[in-house]
């Protein structure tokens, strides 16, 4: 884990200053307007920084690479499937309260249209080869998040005769989210971390 305190509001784009207006202190009448103002405040340094990154980047595709990187990390389509308990929290993250679509995360039912496989639950040996097939059907570039303990390492069921002890035995995993199941916030946090990973990725 990094040294940054995880319990503080983290900026959406790393490198940006953390929000100077913590939501809790301002408390205006209409939170909506406040959030819009906050985001506008954030957007300008973000744009400046993105431009700076573009200029700093040297090479043949110095303009397109940041753009595509930006596009790739801001539009992650996860595969719409539910394995076990975490799938309910996965669905809750797309519910009204957490609304993962805010980050451009829209679940798609067809693996062809996905960038991100969130393994949200226990993987059994019976479903293992189907999971691998789905992973292979996803076009590059693609990422895998192991959500919850069952996907990470079998969780409470790791001793069972039918359970794969960790999905990393089957497909390469980019990010593990601990929790049993993780809260929807924790899942969103994982997606933001993944965005950060994509951002730092050297191609």
């Amino acid at each position: 884990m990094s040294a940054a305190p995880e319990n503080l509001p983290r900026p959406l784009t790393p490198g940006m200053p953390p929000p100077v207006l913590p939501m809790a202190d301002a408390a205006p009448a209409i939170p909506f307007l406040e959030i819009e103002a906050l985001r506008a405040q954030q957007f300008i340094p973000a744009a400046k920084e993105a431009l700076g990154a573009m200029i700093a980047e040297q090479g043949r595709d110095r303009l397109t690479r940041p753009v595509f990187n930006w596009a790739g990390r801001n539009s992650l389509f996860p595969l719409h499937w539910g394995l076990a308990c975490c799938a309910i929290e996965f669905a809750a993250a797309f519910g009204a309260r957490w609304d993962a679509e805010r980050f451009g995360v829209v679940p798609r039912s067809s693996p062809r249209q996905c960038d991100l496989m969130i393994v949200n639950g226990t993987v059994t040996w019976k479903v293992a080869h189907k999971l691998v097939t789905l992973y292979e059907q996803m076009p590059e570039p693609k990422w895998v998040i192991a959500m919850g303990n069952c996907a990470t390492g079998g969780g409470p069921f790791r001793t069972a005769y039918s359970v794969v002890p960790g999905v990393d035995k089957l497909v390469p995993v980019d990010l593990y989210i601990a929790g049993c199941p993780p809260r929807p916030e924790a899942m969103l946090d994982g997606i933001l971390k993944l965005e950060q990973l994509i951002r730092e990725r050297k191609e």
Partner: protein
Amino acid sequence: MAGAQVEEKTKPSRSILWVARPMLTAARQFGRSLLRPSTIVYPFERLEDPKFRDRVGIGSGRPIGVGHIWDNYRGVHALNIATCISCNLCAFSCPDLCIDMVTVPGGDPKHPKKSPQIDYGKCSYCGFCSDACPEGCLTMTTRYELSVTKRAEMVYSPQKLQEVFERKLPMNPVRVERPANEDAILLEPLLCIGCNACARDCPTNCITMLDIPKVEPKPGEKVAKRIWKEPVVNDSDCVRCGTCISVCPKECLFWGIRT
């Protein structure tokens, strides 16, 4: 409610409104959520933030949360190494076997101090360990974000758990009462050799070795060599960790009801 028989009456009359009624309902919700949608703008607004919780709730138009009564969430553990007595109860009680007792500085070289190291890739956040902790040094905080890129980073050493503790996050306030009639550590005196192992390893030092009168063997009877001391357990200090039973070389300690 008169009867639970769900009648045909719930079917709508085929009026011109058959499409308009659901649309009006949706529109009503639209109006309600236009300024105050019940979405938490997550990285900025946080449910565990008490100030945020003040502003939302069923009465406020944003149906999020139920007021102030939910600091109860079981998240990542916090460990206060200073008060940990190395009793092993957390590791015993863990249903997922995710707790290892590892050596931490602070003990003497002969009996090193051990504190829990938790593998969050296995932990199911059931709270059995913090319920079992007799000193209240292992608690669960409301922190839930824990995403890492390597599996090994999920293993939290005692020092890391101590860092969580030092962050002073809201703790899970539930302390579970002990049952009234607990079993006690009983002694089978005939087997005891007075070796002091139990008293030495007792994490709470509630076992004292008392002298007992030396019994001369009858002629011809073979008696094991022993020290003429016997452990006496102070039940009010005992945390029932069972360390003494496990270290006893002669298996002369056992659980039972003290009469």
